[in-house]
């Protein structure tokens, strides 16, 4: 070995997104070396390394995101829902729901304790590297404070006057006919590591999906009280449409400038729609097993399934209430975020 480096662990850890992230959890951490910053991506059985020499680092940028707030709302709603279920149902099932409520409360407290969420990246002359370990603002600011002196020791210090004069000079050279820049930002896709430009998709499929989710929420609420085959058919139609639009949205959001909140909501909605379909199909099959004579006719079986009364079946009741709450939160939050995203496109 010709080089021996001692590394100091920097605060913050996070999960790398993209690729096989759903199957293999790639954990990211930062380490401060003698002359470089080391990004370590750990898949559990292998470690990948990326080195950024202090003399090459051009900028470190971090920005607070709303992911933490969204998580707080989701965990809060789930805690409240399970507390409500605990109060409504009797023993011994209330032990299970109160345990789940406790779990969500712990997650909520942990999220509050960890502080606001953030996104960060590092810029060099040839690459822009996302830093998933700096997913909390507190840690990101701490790391910036730790790295600034070592980078300045390698490169020298840049005063505010230097920045102003050099930026103005560059912008004047780039846009000689226009007024001094720095006053009006230009919307441009960030250069990604694979140099793909962001698509100009404005979120039409997402809007339909979030509206369908609100419709799903209304349907779930109606299904608690109305046990008619027409409602079941309507539910199948709305659910199928929501799954189709969730898939279309997931495809269209790839490589677009969509904020992380909308992307996360789309994936959550798709997974929950599929999960709910599996659960409801399980109940449908179970109904058939309980009534073997109805197995010969699919229509009869569907009639039997739609006549199930949630007030007599606590599992079905819980599933319907949970679905109504989930779809309402996902649909309304999605529409709010989409509105914000669209106005940010139009506003610039």
């Amino acid at each position, binding site marked *: *070995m*010709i*080089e021996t*480096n*001692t*590394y100091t*662990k920097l605060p913050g850890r996070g999960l790398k997104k993209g690729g096989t992230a759903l199957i293999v959890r790639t954990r990211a951490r930062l*380490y401060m070396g003698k*002359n470089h910053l*080391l990004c*370590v991506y*750990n898949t*559990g*059985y*292998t*470690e*990948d*390394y990326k*080195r950024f*020499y202090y003399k090459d*680092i*051009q*900028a*470190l*940028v*971090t*920005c*607070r*995101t709303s992911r933490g707030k969204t998580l707080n709302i989701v965990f809060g709603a789930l805690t409240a829902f399970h507390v409500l279920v605990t109060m409504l149902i009797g023993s011994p099932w209330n032990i299970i729901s109160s345990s789940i409520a406790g779990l969500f409360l712990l997650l909520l407290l942990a999220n509050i304790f960890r502080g*606001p969420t*953030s*996104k960060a*990246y590092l*810029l060099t*002359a040839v690459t822009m590297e996302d830093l998933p370990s700096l997913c909390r*603002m507190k840690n*990101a*600011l701490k790391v910036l404070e730790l790295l*600034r002196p070592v980078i*300045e020791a390698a*490169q*020298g*210090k*840049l005063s*505010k006057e230097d*920045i102003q004069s*050099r*930026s103005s000079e*560059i912008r004047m050279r780039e846009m000689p006919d226009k007024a001094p820049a*720095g006053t009006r*930002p*230009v*919307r441009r*896709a*960030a*250069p990604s590591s694979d140099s793909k430009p962001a698509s100009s998709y404005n979120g039409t499929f997402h809007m339909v999906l979030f509206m369908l989710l609100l419709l799903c929420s209304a349907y779930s609420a109606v299904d608690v009280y109305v046990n008619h085959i027409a409602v079941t058919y309507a539910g199948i139609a709305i659910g199928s449409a929501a799954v189709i639009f969730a898939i279309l949205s997931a495809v269209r959001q790839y490589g677009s*400038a969509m*904020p*992380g909140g909308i992307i996360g909501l789309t994936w959550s909605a798709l997974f929950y729609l599929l999960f709910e379909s599996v659960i409801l199909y399980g109940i449908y099959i179970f109904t058939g097993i309980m009534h073997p004579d109805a197995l010969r006719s699919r229509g009869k079986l569907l009639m039997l399934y739609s006549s199930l009364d949630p007030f007599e079946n606590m599992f079905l009741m819980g599933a319907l209430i949970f679905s109504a709450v989930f779809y309402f939160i996902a649909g309304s939050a999605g529409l709010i975020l989409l509105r914000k995203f669209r106005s*940010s496109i139009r506003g610039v």
Partner: protein
Amino acid sequence: MNIHPIHCPNCRIALPYQMYNTDGPAHCPSCEGQTKVEVFPALYNGDSVPYGAETLQANEPGCFFHPQKKAVVPCALCGRFLCALCDVEFGGRHVCPLCLAAGKKKKKIRDLETQRVLYDDIALALAIIPIILIWGTIITAPMSLYVAIRHWKSPSSIIPRTKLRFVLAILLSGAQTTGWLFLFGWLISRA
């Protein structure tokens, strides 16, 4: 000079330079999220690095790879004289392209390694995870022992770590293997 614009990580808008190196976080003009931008001189020094090599003058040492070019530095590994074109600097050392390629191939230069297999984690996982299925440990316990002993001296993570995972893997898989041996011995003796 060709510089990248600095973008907000959240909404990807190009940030105005007034937001660079401020004392505290500033607000992004688009998403209004708290943003902190730290820029360094390298942002403006993109083209300032001198490139090329001087032509050799009389009585001057020449580059090993380009004899007509003036040598500026010796390779830190093989000692060959290098011109500015052949000089590769990393980690504060100057090396020639051949040593660099050889070092990367033989994994002798740690700063060029981009991946390592964590044998200690593999051994520990083989010793712990199959416990859920119980019967699986008949196969995985000896495997874990083999991985732990075979790779005891293999380089692990670049970040220094102890042999604790290997020790735990050996203890756990050793206990599992011993348990199975006792069970089989008892079954054979009963038969």
